[in-house]
């Protein structure tokens, strides 16, 4: 039976957007935890660590996110590991995000002059202490704008989770469109909700970029 597309559907879409945000937040945290390890491994003077982390980044960035979603959601059950859509999506997005954040943060870390490392080393700080007290605090200001930019990408990309049946904003839109047969109105609404989530973040990113620039 075809029903009308009404306010109640909009409310459902907004409710589903919570799952988009929840997936984004979970993936962002997961990606951050792996990403910081990758970024640091990429800059330490231990060649095997650098190669491993570089390989990780190349493999993840050189393969489509959609394929990772399929591998984890459809592939893992074949080897006896059952995953629900939420877990599959959270894992795939964490892995995907970690490669990008790893690269962004590596760039921020190497943007700090070598002389800062030397100054720390000359005072007797260990490599870890140089990172923690000297390099990372200075690289944060460099890292914030592109990190927020990536977060915006992540919000939009979580729509891919719809293909494995994870009901977030896009999947809810698909269901609503099927039920109301008003795809144009539904997807415009979906787009508007994505925009409402992403636009403030982009603006925020710009404003901190400006602020950090002034403080320099």
């Amino acid at each position, binding site marked *: 039976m075809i029903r009308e597309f009404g306010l109640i559907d909009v409310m459902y879409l907004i409710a589903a957007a919570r799952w988009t945000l929840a997936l984004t937040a979970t993936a962002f945290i997961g990606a951050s935890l792996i990403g910081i390890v990758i970024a640091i491994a990429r800059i330490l003077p231990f060649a095997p660590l650098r190669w491993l982390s570089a390989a990780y980044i190349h493999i993840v960035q050189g393969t489509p996110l959609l394929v990772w979603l399929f591998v984890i959601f459809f592939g893992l059950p074949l080897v006896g590991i059952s995953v629900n859509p939420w877990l599959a999506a959270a894992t795939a997005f964490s892995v995907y995000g970690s490669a990008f954040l790893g690269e962004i943060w590596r760039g921020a870390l190497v943007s700090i002059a070598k*002389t800062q490392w*030397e*100054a720390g*080393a*000359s*005072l*007797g700080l260990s490599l870890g202490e140089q990172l923690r007290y000297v390099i990372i605090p200075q690289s944060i200001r460099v890292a914030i704008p592109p990190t927020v930019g990536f977060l915006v990408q992540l919000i939009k990309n979580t729509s891919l989770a719809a293909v494995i049946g994870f009901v977030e904003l896009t999947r809810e839109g698909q269901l609503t469109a099927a039920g109301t047969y008003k795809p144009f109105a539904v997807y415009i609404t979906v787009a508007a909700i994505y925009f409402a989530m992403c636009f403030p973040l982009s603006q925020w990113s710009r404003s901190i970029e400006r602020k950090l620039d002034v403080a320099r």
Partner: protein
Amino acid sequence: MSLVEIHGINKSYGSVQVLKDVSLDIAKGEVVAVIGRSGSGKSTMLRCINGLEPVQAGVIRVDGTQVNDPRTNLRKLRQEVGIVFQSFNLFPHLSVCDNITLAPRVVKKQAPQAAREVAREVLARVGLEDKLDAYPAQLSGGQQQRVAIARSLAMRPKLMLFDEVTSALDPELTGEVLKVLESVASEGMTMILVTHEMGFARRFGSRVVFMHEGRIHEQGPAAAVLAEPKTPELQTFLSAVLH
């Protein structure tokens, strides 16, 4: 026993040999000025002494500890050897106080309050006690360099290395830094300075070492070497810098 012993060190960057069989002994309390053209290897030699640059051959010892031995705890060595750089290299995200107290707190495990007291004391020695809570960007180049010297002093080193510490400063700012160097020297600190300040070398250097093409070309008591250079290379160098 010498505080610093350098025996036959060689160092190359790729095919370019920057230090060729350099040997130098420095006694406790000596103030050694290392002079020479840029590219003569003087800064590189200085950076080898605290292990910032590895050497390919030879031995460097500071206070009996071999610097270029992989088993040496460089972290421990560097607490005894301070270095001040041409470009100051203060930590821009930290206040003057935190710049000075970071290593004492983290490396020497000093209590924050005690470390702050030390910061106050060393800042007073460089004449900047009122800048304790300023940030590096709020200071002039000369002040930043004096803070960098204070930061080094706060570790109570036995030896201090100065790598062209006035070269990045405007002429009117070099005086205040040289004055601090003089007072550190007069307190008996063992100092090795790579410098272009011939006047300072003459007045406060116990010895002048002239480097040329990666070797120690001529050395001796500061006044004598600068007044009567023996080798034509040093004569040429001095006549070039003294005009």
